[in-house]
């Protein structure tokens, strides 16, 4: 059974690019809108998509969870976004950061940029920056929109307004190209956010997924659920030869053998493919999956311990 699932893990990881492409397409189904410069405003927009995908993308089929959260929390009518938080927790428990690795359009965008052949840099030494995204989540997505309100009780969606590069890429740029009224409205804010987008693009070429690692509030939210998510990484200690290839292959700077459910793990499966003994695989379900292996491991455990 384990063998079979590790086969599935291998396949999933190998075809990850195609799954990402498919997810991006499903998230942005209304392609003709790019030419019209309009937005789809139907019932789909009442539901959040799992990844970071701007509501104002002409093709978007649903709402961005981070955008929707800020819109509701900053509205004068509601004090907290219960419905959206619920959806986010559900997604976090069901999939965790698997969403980052497989379903998020902006993650895919950064990965494609990273394929541009240049010298690549490691982000291992920049680890403290990974905590920045939690600050973005707390301050820009929750605190400022909820509490910095005007006289009528309305807040601004600070993350969308001042930081989100996906909004410029999918919303501002295509809309302003197709719509002269919006083009006329572009100002300093657009220049600022366009520079952010350009920086993220440049950094993505040199580093692997810089936005996901350092800034993304959605990634931060899902990261909190990696440990309890039904979607987990599993390392078979019996098969593991401690060669360290998985840690080397990991572009999110995680050692899967030590912390299989690390907050930074986006379940991309690069470790699965790097493992020479097929000891690493995806696991889906309740519990930590140790039950079965424990039985097999018991007699060997002492030996293992001695070796170490």
């Amino acid at each position, binding site marked *: 059974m384990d063998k079979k699932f590790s086969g599935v893990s291998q396949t999933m990881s190998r075809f990850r690019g195609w799954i990402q492409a498919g997810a991006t397409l499903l998230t942005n189904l209304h392609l003709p809108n790019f030419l019209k410069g309009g937005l789809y405003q139907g019932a789909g927009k009442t539901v959040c998509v799992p990844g970071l995908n701007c509501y104002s993308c002409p093709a978007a089929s649903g709402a961005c969870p981070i955008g929707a959260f800020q819109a509701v929390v900053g509205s004068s009518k509601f004090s907290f976004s219960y419905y959206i938080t619920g959806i986010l927790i559900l997604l976090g428990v069901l999939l965790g950061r698997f969403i980052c690795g497989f379903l998020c359009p902006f993650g895919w965008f950064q990965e494609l940029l990273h394929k541009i052949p240049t010298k690549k840099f490691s982000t291992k030494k920049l680890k403290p920056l990974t905590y920045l995204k939690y600050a973005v989540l707390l301050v820009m997505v929750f605190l400022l929109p909820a509490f910095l309100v*005007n006289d*009528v009780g309305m807040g601004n969606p600070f993350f969308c307004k001042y930081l989100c590069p996906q909004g410029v890429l999918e919303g501002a740029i295509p809309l302003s*190209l197709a719509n002269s009224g919006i083009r*006329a*409205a572009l*100002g300093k804010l657009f220049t600022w956010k366009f520079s952010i987008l350009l920086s993220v693009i440049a950094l993505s070429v040199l580093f692997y997924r810089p936005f996901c690692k350092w800034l993304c509030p959605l990634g931060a939210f899902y990261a909190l659920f990696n440990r309890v998510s039904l979607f987990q990484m599993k390392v078979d200690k019996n098969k593991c030869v401690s060669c360290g290839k998985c840690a080397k292959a990991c572009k999110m700077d995680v050692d899967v053998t030590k912390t299989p459910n690390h907050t930074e793990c986006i379940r991309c499966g690069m470790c699965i493919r790097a493992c020479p003994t097929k000891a690493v695989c995806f696991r889906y379900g309740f519990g930590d999956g140790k039950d079965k292996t424990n039985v097999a491991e018991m007699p060997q455990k002492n030996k293992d311990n001695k070796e170490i």
Partner: protein
Amino acid sequence: MKMNRMNTASRLLALLLTTLVVLSLAACGTKGGDKTDGTSSEPKNAEEAVAMYNDLMAQENDILSENTELWEKVYMSADKGMALQEDGKNYGDFLLSTIESAKDQFTTDEMNLLQGEAEKIRDIENQLTLIEEKYPEVAQQSTDDAMSVPAGSDMTTPLDDGSMQKFPAFEGKDLDGNPVKSDDLFSGNAVTVVNFWFTTCNPCVGELADLDALNRELAEKGGALIGVNTFTLDGDEAAISEAKDVLTKKGATYQNVYFPSDGEAGKFTANIFAYPTTYVVDRNGNIVGEPIVGAITEKNQAETLQKLIDQALAADMG
């Protein structure tokens, strides 16, 4: 071997992506670039002629809207009996002679300024006439910018050749329940500014006070400003009371109207996706220029709106 294949594939993808990025940047470049193009050269085809024509008209409008107070004095002193259109006289010449006849009302500085500007207008008008002679269809195609009434074209009857977009008709009510008909509303005002907003839209609510000030200003000139709160369409009572709440808090006293969402105007509203959006409508119910997207609290947006209003007011006077 497999690695190699992967590498070529990813290289190809990378190449494709870079070209895309470069192309999109290039597209941005040209977009910004063509605005600064000069307009001195001769148009090569009808399309260019239309563009040039519109550009010249815009330049003329800019000149006229820069020193509004002075020009208004000039207009006031113009001899209304003077049949300037019939004898094909240049509008710039007309202005010059009007300024000359009213010179006692201006200081020498003002005179110099006005004369200089009027001469510029005369040059623009000459260019416009040249284009019109070569491409007679141009004047018809670019009627929405008709403010300065170039020689020879008849602007007395509004053209209905589709070049002007009518604001969709509606029969609705204001938030106090008084009936409002679009035909009566527009024909009763020299210019009507229609602002689309909704209650939970922050920038929309942010400009309500400015809009109220604008409404008071317009009232003096025979115009009006109305708001359309999209939440209140079809007369949703909860939405109406919330909208009224916000309006009161922001001190906005101008009329806000709603209409059925399945009507002509309702469908028109459904296609607006950026808020606030502000339209300028003339006495004949035609939309003047392009809608202003985004709040008019931004200085340049307010200026664009003012230009459209002046354009509508001037056309109404002429």
